[in-house]
């Protein structure tokens, strides 16, 4: 008996697994991309171009082209930095925290959310890098031996912590994303091979590192995945906490408060989930992923947004209460001017978008209406942007000395760069959707009821 002996054909049970493979692979295998996808790619690439031009003007001229001034030294740039980093956090939360807490609904969206994390962190990193004024000296922030005498980075500065936190975050997110993708890339490899696409198969083959689904490999893979999830969870907390330290370690009223670390983390998750839905709702429609990303998953995300929105609201309230409770006149003034000062419109935009908008999610009708959800998500994205703007710009515009009071207005290059990062983000995300496995096929299969089928220990069921 030395040739293949086929005893009988596979049974029906495997149809589920094949369907999952087909539904997910289809997105990348469709011979021609959807017209709307092409249109979106063109628009986002154009926006990215605007960003590149803004960077060109900035680098060749200096950061004077921004609206920042001596008093409001941090403005749109740092607002955007914090906003983008926050958006990234939902990806890690979905892939890591929900994994640890065994929320099975995560499997349909974790891959896309992780991709979003990486692109968002890339956008975020641009801003402080450009704000240094001379980004080509960015390596000064790394502890490298140099020819400037024994000059080293200043580790007591929160800005240095940022460098380490954000770069660690990007690295770990990439590793986590890539590692989760390897089995699915192997699926692509094998499918391309079977379809005779040799070049694609070779590329996916290199990327999948020769993955062959061995049980011994899966064993270590799962341990490593669990540990990476366990590492990402404290990491995601630490990254936005470190970002909040940039503000909270100062003595500026409105910045210096101890609730900042968890408050920033909650806000980050809040805005990140909004962004996940902003992206996935249209793409789900475009690529027929309704079987993969189910309505109940969207429900769960709506509820998380509602919860984190309330946490953010709790923090707003606590801040105001303690500002009064402290008896510190500067603290009191800072909060009064935040709500009723020259930036009152930003404050009320923030409260209405972040605290009032998510209240709609109490209604089941809203949670079933994807257009409504999408609009509310846009509101939350805007609101969270305003939250960062309110914290950063209004506190600086009304600091201790009345002589240092000022107002901030962005220039076209501020706007251009922000638009550019949005374009870059969407562009990368669209490319990811077209060329990489958009959902974790192996995890979806593992979470399906058929994954436990056919065992002899049927007595365990009831």
């Amino acid at each position: 008996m030395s040739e293949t002996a086929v005893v009988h054909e596979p049974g029906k049970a495997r149809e589920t697994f094949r369907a999952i493979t087909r539904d997910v692979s289809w997105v990348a295998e469709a011979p021609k991309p959807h017209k709307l996808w092409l249109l979106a790619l063109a628009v986002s690439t154009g926006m990215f171009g605007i960003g590149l031009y803004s960077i060109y003007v900035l680098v060749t001229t200096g950061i004077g082209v921004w609206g920042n001034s001596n008093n409001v030294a941090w403005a749109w740039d740092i607002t955007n930095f914090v906003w983008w980093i926050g958006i990234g956090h939902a990806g890690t939360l979905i892939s890591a925290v929900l994994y640890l807490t065994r929320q099975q609904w995560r499997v349909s969206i974790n891959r896309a959310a992780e991709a979003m994390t990486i692109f968002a962190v890339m956008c975020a990193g641009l801003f402080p890098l450009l704000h240094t004024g001379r980004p080509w000296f960015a390596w000064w922030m790394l502890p490298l031996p140099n020819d400037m005498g024994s000059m080293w980075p200043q580790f007591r500065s929160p800005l240095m912590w940022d460098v380490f936190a954000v770069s660690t975050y990007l690295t770990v997110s990439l590793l986590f994303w890539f590692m989760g993708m390897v089995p699915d890339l192997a699926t692509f490899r094998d499918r391309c091979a079977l379809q005779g696409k040799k070049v694609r198969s070779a590329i996916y083959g290199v990327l999948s590192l020769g993955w062959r689904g061995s049980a011994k490999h899966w064993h270590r893979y799962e341990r490593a995945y669990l540990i990476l999830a366990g590492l990402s969870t404290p990491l995601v907390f630490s990254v936005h906490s470190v970002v909040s330290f940039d503000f909270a370690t100062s003595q500026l009223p409105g910045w210096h408060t101890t609730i900042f670390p968890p408050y920033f983390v909650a806000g980050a998750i809040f805005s990140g989930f909004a962004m996940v839905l902003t992206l996935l709702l249209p793409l789900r429609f475009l690529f027929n992923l309704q079987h993969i990303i189910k309505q109940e998953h969207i429900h769960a995300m709506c509820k998380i947004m509602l919860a984190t929105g309330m946490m953010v609201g709790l923090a707003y309230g606590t801040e105001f209460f303690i500002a009064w409770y402290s008896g510190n006149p500067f603290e009191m003034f800072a909060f009064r001017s935040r709500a009723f000062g020259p930036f009152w419109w930003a404050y009320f935009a923030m409260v209405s978008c972040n605290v009032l908008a998510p209240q709609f999610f109490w209604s089941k009708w809203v949670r079933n209406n994807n257009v409504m959800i999408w609009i509310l998500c846009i509101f939350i994205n805007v609101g969270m942007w305003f939250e960062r703007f309110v914290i950063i710009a209004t506190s600086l515009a009304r600091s201790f000395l009345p002589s240092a009071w000022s107002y901030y207005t962005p220039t076209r290059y501020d706007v251009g760069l922000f638009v550019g990062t949005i374009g870059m983000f969407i562009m990368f995300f669209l490319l990811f959707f077209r060329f990489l496995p958009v959902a974790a096929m192996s995890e979806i299969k593992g979470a399906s009821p058929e994954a436990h089928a056919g065992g002899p220990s049927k007595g365990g069921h009831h």
Partner: protein
Amino acid sequence: MATKDHDAAPVTPEPVNGEGELYGVLAEYDTPGELVEASRRVRDAGYTEFDCYSPFPVHGIDSAMGIKRTILPLVIFGGGFAGALGGLALQWYCNAHAWTWNISGKPTWSIPANIPVAYECAILLAALTAFFGMWAFNKLPQVWHPLFRKDRFARVTDDGFFIGIEARDRHFDLDKTQKLLQDAGAIAIEPAYYDPDPAKKVMPRWITAFIVASTAFALIPFAIAAKARNSHSPDPHIHIFADMDYQPKFRSDQKLDIFKDGRANLGEQPGTVARGHLPEDDLFFRGLDGEAGAQKWTTGFPKLYPDGRPFAVDGALLERGRGRYEIYCTPCHGYDGRGNGMVPERVKLGGGLWQARNLVEAPDAKGAGGVAVQMPNGQLFNTISNGYNTMMGYAAQIPHADRWAIVAYVRALQRAQNASQADVPPDLQGSIR
């Protein structure tokens, strides 16, 4: 590889001739549950060199196959611990050892401020250990595994569940092993062979070549850095972004071919004076008045500045004088000029005795005392320039014009400190009590 839709089985068997040596037997099972059961039977039959293959981690297969818990977590913990210690050591080295710098009065070795970075380092190293450790323990990447030669095996990443028993297992016997797998419920069984080309049994040569080439390429920057550290060159560094490193000017140590000695700096030339540096006005520069040969200390002030502007004793001058006086003179002479500045006060605290001149003391009726009040302006100017008794000269610190401003201010101070009621303007007389 076949081009037809993989959903359609079966696959044509491969001929044994033209194959390499036997790798083992591959059997396919229909469901995850059957795979678990079959793997348990293979293990119970005493096989050790076998493995299961599935599109997702199958529940319960670890215990069925008898896979030992990996030590990977322990290694990762080690990585994280090393990261934390390394992060702390890095910060100690940078800020408490190699480059100590006072930052808002915080200690150079500030543990609370060093926690975030140490924490990030711990996570980074643990994550890197987890990622690379996992691949290393799994002996991946390995794109040349013999099972990849089986078309049927392509399903392992889609919906196929396989057991592969290797020929090197001591219980292996082609027929018996296939029988065992078939009895365990396999839906398809086939032997697997290595590639007849022995070079394809191991890492393909192009991968080796790629690794060697990219490693060599990665070393180039280090080689350049090493060379730069061990060589000397008169050429400036390569600056991709010039910033303000190069400006259109010459510094004294630079080369310039215009001059004979080839230096940009001509140096002092005999018989020349730099612009504005000719101190020919005795009145302004030395405080001397009168005909040549019979000069005396002036009692007035200069008429002109060296650049030709008229010299005026006005509010602006007094204001300037007050500023200079408070910077340079108050440490000894005090704000009111009575010689009770901080320096004499401190000496007194230490039990010593050291007197600064009382600048505003008026002479008594016999004209004794009040030295500073009686000095002509020129002599006051000279005192500031060249010193007096234990007082050193301030010529190096205070420019000439400022010395004159101080003289004017000292005069004002003397007047103020010895004022009588009559000096108060008549309309304000009433407000004095």
